[in-house]
């Protein structure tokens, strides 16, 4: 299951979390938890675009993020996608079988 998820990410065949749940014939909630656990174990990492999350990079032009309160930031993050990618450990688990 976890291994299938890593393999799916590595194969670049499925791009969304929900379609992955369908591919693996699992409940989306189960997949969601697996993602969290894979993250805790260090196989995948969530990353967000710098100007799409709560970080202000002080670029000086479009910097409106720093004015927002946490509630607004969370609201914005909820409406954006979360991107998960393989870490080196994740790549190793898939590509460098002992």
């Amino acid at each position, binding site marked *: *299951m*976890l*291994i299938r998820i*890593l393999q*799916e*990410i*590595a194969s*670049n065949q*499925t*791009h*969304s*979390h*929900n379609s*992955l749940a369908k591919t693996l014939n*699992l*409940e989306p*909630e*189960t997949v*969601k*938890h*697996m*993602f*969290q*656990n894979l993250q*805790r*174990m260090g*196989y995948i990492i969530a*990353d*967000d*675009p*710098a*100007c*799409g999350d709560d970080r202000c*990079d002080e*670029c*000086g*032009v*479009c910097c*409106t993020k720093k*004015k927002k309160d946490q509630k*607004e930031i969370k*609201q*914005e993050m*909820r*409406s*954006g*996608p*979360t*991107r*998960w*990618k*393989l870490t080196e450990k*994740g*790549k190793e*688990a898939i590509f460098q*079988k*002992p």
Partner: protein
Amino acid sequence: MNREFTIALVGNPNCGKTSLFNIMTGSRQHVGNWPGVTVERKEGIAKYNGRNIKVIDLPGTYSFSASSEDELIAVRYILQDKPDVVVNVIDSGNIERNLYLALQLLEMNSQVVLVLNMFDEAEKKHIKIDQAKLAKLLGAPVVATIATRNYGIQELLATALKQEKQHREPLKLDYGTPANQVIAEIAKELEETGLATAQDSRLLAVKLLENDQFARDYVQLEKFPALQETVKRASQKIRTEAGFDPEIYLADKRYEFISMLVRECVQREATQSQDLTERLDKVLTHKWLGIPLFFIIMFLIYQITMGFGNDFLGSYVENAFALLGEYISGLMANSPELLRSFVIDAVIGGVGSVLVFVPLMFTMYFLISFLEDSGYMARAAYLMDRLMSAVGLHGKTAVAMIVGSGCNVAGIMSTRTLDSKKDRMIGILISPFISCSARLPVYALFAGVFFGGKKVGIFPASGLVIFSLYLLGIIIAVTAGKLLSKTVFKQEKSYFIMELPPYRIPTLKSLLIHMWEKTESFVKKAGTIIFGIVALIWALSIFPVGVTPGSVESILGKLGTILAPIFSPAGFGTWESAVALIVGVGAKEAIVATFGMVYGTGEEMLSNVLGQYFTPLSAYAFMVMTLLYSPCAATIGIIKKETNSLKWAFFSVAYSLVIGWGMAVLVYQLGTFLGL
């Protein structure tokens, strides 16, 4: 007298454990600290049939792989203090997540009662859990509670007390061959060396195989070389025979079991919102329909922006500026000519001609914010991702392009999330081709003057022209990216997956806030950077002393005259256009301001004047040039900063100048050839 019976409450964070503890113990609580740490220790007394039951509220933990101080306390307490019953509190609405810890508890031979807490919340989410079946499959009692309503608490206490006289075998998960065999070997050795009891040896064996630091410390593995060797050999055996690291292999088997439990015991009816999300996604993220629909949606946005924002709302602001110009002109009738020229030509003519586009910005950002807040822009990123991957670019470059449609600086900043330097370089170098909001006033002005009032089918031609420019920007960016990836930067493969949020109806308040935040920077820029540029241009247009302000004899006019022939093949070889394009490198909005100033009039009158200098074809070529010719000063600065190289900043300016000029010439010459 009965001895004190101890219950430990354990569960994931936010499972309602503390509410349960409070309702069980009432005011009979004692709060202190766990020894040696500042983590709060809560214990209290519950009463059942006159018997006192000691209840310990353990810190929340997701699993037995304790990674924080709080989690360590919970795990160590269960292993060392061995409470009479471990009550595993499960958030019924998130049962999959909570079952992971439950399985680990059940793998120990401790008395465990599973509590399906917040049962009402699960019902609200249309989740039905078959308690009896779950209890049977797990071999442990299951009780439903609603702590906030004092529901199921007496049954829980009764069930917990019953465990005192029960003997429960540990849950033996099937980890498959050869894991089952090596787990048994390690567990036996742990028991023989006295490092674990029969109760917890199996779980500790599993944790040692998973290379869990807590388990290693707990049994002090380093002090037992023979055991260490057994674990090492066992891990290698799993690696060789299963093909994966034991950590992920064993967790995988646990999930297989959880998945079976969920299939057998949990029924989940799709809620209305899930249903809607699924139905909308079937269409909006469809393999073939998704991308055309995305472009149709964007096309409609530009149509509404031009039709409503520019033509309808913008006309009121134009009239207001015209009246203001007349009023101030009257007021300053007796003022010195220089001051009057500055206020009328530079401030009202220049800055004013940019500010008339504020309604257009409001409209566009309101619509874009609607798409963002509704969850559609996440799908757009997903679709663009697929498109990018299909042409061999990193999918994440699409994010830089989407962010860059607001402002190229932000788009370039967002390339920071690209892992390889090569991917980043491509993202940085193609971002400036994406049409940002600063170019929109230029398009709106020219499209309004030369294509306003015309229709293509049922659609206004001006909206179509603007949409075509956005599309052209994407095509040029993708093509440039593809060329760069095949030549200068050959790419490595990347792996990722996206989690899409559900659709929702945005609130008006949120839309208005986002709309204002985005437009605010445009207004501020008009009052600061553009004002500064306009003041400089105005100064250049009145010197040397004695020339007619804004004439070809001025410094500005002479500079423009030198450069104008370069743009002749593109159909706009006037000194005014040349000057506007140079000024536009400072800030793209300043192009409109410059025209407003050099033609000595605001945007409302520019409509009449521009017709004398441009044809629809040369106007379109000019817009193409504006789209592609050079990043603005802020973008050039950020390219230098992000690439840490002046060379790449220069490269970006040079190659975009060549592409911009080449495309403008191509459009004009091809159009002329076709008789347009």
